[in-house]
């Protein structure tokens, strides 16, 4: 009890005063939380404040945001070549930065990070591990993290997970994400180590093998992409090989349609949680509440919603880009300031937020990428609309393969025949019209190159030897 109190004070001091976290203390707090649950069955009072910080009070929130931004900008301007130059050019005094003035700093784009990555590394930092974006939206971006970050982020996530009842020693987590998502894999493995949960890291192997592993290992938690989840559902429906022990499915990285989430619940027997996390702005993440709002974690970063075509705040209700500044001391090795995630949302006025997380600012779920939303200006058709329409029309099984060709006043949706699952293209066109989009639908010719269709993360398939037909020459010669 006394030690735990000291550790909590140490953590609170780091969050409020901005001193580096004592990572060992945070890791030990995970053990304390588990012991608390063993004794009492639930965390004690004020757990919400411990998890979410004192951000329900707008005045306190503003004060902490000002201090955190000042600290973060000051450090980035002092230690990274990229921001040293950028802050100077913007004529910004790092000691006076706050919520009111941060917008004077130009946005950092994915291209900036991709082309000038080395200039983002903080002087004196010790990079330990690199993680790359999957590259589904362009060439991959590489982000370095230090030992400190690699230990701190999972420790904080494990603490929140244990206190929210999301993970514990009786859980078995199966991870079906790309093996290249090193940060996420490292994160999952560290969270399991700290919480005592079992971990099955499988990657994007053939769905049948994943389903078998889910059953054989008694997995209770599944972490994957929506497109891969759709493939799991399809195989489970076809073979009747659904797992029986799952209690939650975490999905991220792609659009998750309500139809897919409902189908997953029906077939795999667990609710699907739409998560938001992005390699470039780690460790800032967001949670979906029951009302479907996206609530970003205010402890870990400053979140803005910026107009689509100007660096000004998007008015409430209008679409805008999510711009994130992860705070020091949570992010230290390769800081980014005002990073344009490219994801588009609508900011919600505080008066409209009446969910269980009311008091924390919220946005709508992600509407799409800014490039997609801009391209849809003439006809209103975004990938989310197509995915939701396809999932509604033909059932969410199988990740829908399609591509949108943008014309001036309408869009052409070219879909793989398999995505329609026997439904007529006109039925899809009708659904798209009903959602307000002007589009016509074409079916990809059988002879056409399917790689022309929009890539999904499930395409990052990692074929295993067991998937190679018996007797093939590859099997005969490759296995010693």
């Amino acid at each position, binding site marked *: *009890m*006394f*030690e*735990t*109190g000291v550790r*909590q004070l140490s953590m609170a001091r780091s969050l409020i005063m901005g001193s580096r976290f004592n990572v060992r203390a945070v890791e030990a*707090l995970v053990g*304390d*939380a588990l*012991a*608390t649950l*063993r*004794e*009492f*069955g*639930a*965390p*004690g*009072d*004020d*757990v*919400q*404040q*411990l998890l979410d910080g004192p951000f329900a009070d707008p005045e306190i929130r503003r004060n902490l945001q000002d201090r955190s931004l000042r600290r973060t900008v000051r450090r980035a301007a002092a230690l990274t070549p990229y921001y040293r130059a950028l802050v100077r050019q913007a004529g910004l005094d790092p000691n006076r930065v706050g919520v009111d003035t941060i917008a004077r700093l130009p946005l950092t784009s994915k291209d900036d990070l991709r082309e000038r990555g080395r200039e983002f590394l903080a002087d004196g930092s010790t990079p330990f591990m690199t993680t790359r974006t999957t590259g589904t939206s362009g060439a991959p971006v590489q982000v370095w993290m230090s030992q400190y970050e690699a230990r701190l982020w999972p420790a904080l996530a494990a603490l929140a997970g244990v*206190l*929210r*009842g*999301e993970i514990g020693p009786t859980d078995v987590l199966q991870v079906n994400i790309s093996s290249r998502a090193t940060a996420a894999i490292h994160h999952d493995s560290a969270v399991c180590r700290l919480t005592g949960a079992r971990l099955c890291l499988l990657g994007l192997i053939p769905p049948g093998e994943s389903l078998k592993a889910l059953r054989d290992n008694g997995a209770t938690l599944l972490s994957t992409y929506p497109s891969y989840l759709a493939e799991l559902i399809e195989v489970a429906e076809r073979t009747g090989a659904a797992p029986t022990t799952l209690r*939650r499915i975490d999905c991220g990285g792609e659009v998750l349609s309500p139809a897919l989430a409902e189908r997953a619940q029906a077939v795999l027997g667990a*609710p699907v*949680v739409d998560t938001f996390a992005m390699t470039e702005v780690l460790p800032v993440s967001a*949670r*979906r*509440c*029951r009302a479907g709002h996206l609530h970003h974690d205010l402890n870990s970063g400053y979140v803005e919603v910026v107009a689509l075509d100007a660096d000004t705040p998007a008015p409430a209700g209008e679409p805008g880009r999510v711009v994130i500044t992860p705070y020091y001391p949570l992010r230290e090795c390769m800081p980014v300031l005002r990073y344009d995630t490219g994801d588009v949302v609508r900011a919600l006025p505080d008066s409209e937020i009446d969910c*269980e*997380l009311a008091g924390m600012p919220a946005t709508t779920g992600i509407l799409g990428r800014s490039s997609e939303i801009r391209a849809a200006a003439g006809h209103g058709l975004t990938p989310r609309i197509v995915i939701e329409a396809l999932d509604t029309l033909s059932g969410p099984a199988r990740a829908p393969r399609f591509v949108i060709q943008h014309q001036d006043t309408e869009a052409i949706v070219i879909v793989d025949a398999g995505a329609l699952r026997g439904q007529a293209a006109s039925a899809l066109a009708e659904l798209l019209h009903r959602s307000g989009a002007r589009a016509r639908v074409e079916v990809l010719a059988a002879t056409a190159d399917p790689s022309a269709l929009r890539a999904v993360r499930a395409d990052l398939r990692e074929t295993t030897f067991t998937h190679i037909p018996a007797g093939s020459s590859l099997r005969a010669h490759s296995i010693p």
Partner: protein
Amino acid sequence: MNQTLFQLCVVVGGAWLTAGAALLYFTHVRLERPAIGHFNGRDVLVVFVFLVTLPALYVILPEAVLTAFLILTFVSALTIGYRPLLSSTPRWLIIGALLGANIAVTRVGLGTVRGWQIYWTLTSIVVLLAVVAVANLYVQGGMQLRHVAWFALALAVYDPLFSIVIPLSIELADRFAGFALDPSIGMRLGALNANIGMGDLLVYSLFTIAAYKAYGPRTLPAVALAITVFGCVIPSIAPELLGSLHRGNIGFVVPAQTFFGPVAFLLYLWWRRRGVEAPMSEWLNRATPAETLPASSKTAELVQAVLP
């Protein structure tokens, strides 16, 4: 002999009253607890070190500092312990009145037997309330019977060491005689004076509610017997055998834990053979109907509500 009989009455009455009140509190009142943290073995060590060093401080501190220290201790215990029962204003008024009256009586009313009786009544009320609060703070905070048993066993060594070998406890008892907020429950009858220290009362209360929480009501007869025989009767007649502990009419200094500690530990070992002691969660599930969930359970509901 009269002193022994009087001592016996005061000690048994004080111990039963305090342990009973602690049990009543435990079964009816839920204290708030922090989001993370429960009482563990290291906390027992911290409390033990604190208890070992505190008497030495009591002896050397100037009177004003000691009084301030005692006020702080009692105010903390009473404020935290009675928050679930009383709102802020009446709580502070009652605490202020109790402590203020105690200090006032100490300064002006100790010239007569009636004055001493008022003094002991006021002191005993404050100490009883504080012990009940602290015992519940520890046990409701996760202190287990295992911890209490080891704690009592450690005190079984400490008590004679600092009563007989190093007469710190005797010096302390002399220092506290007629002192404001004497940390003990006592009474005066004519020339007879008797009391039982707060440390002993805390151990008996902890043992009672920790045993009740861990193994249920079936432990209570054995607990009552152990407290009465080994915590009160034997320590009260021991001075007849150990004259060095006798302090005339102002009572005895008896290393009570020397007798009670080993018995408490053996009882714990005996109960442990029946199975693992129940955690607080199990006791809460047994004891608390769903419609009258305590604050901590409301927190659990809140956590569930924000789960996806």
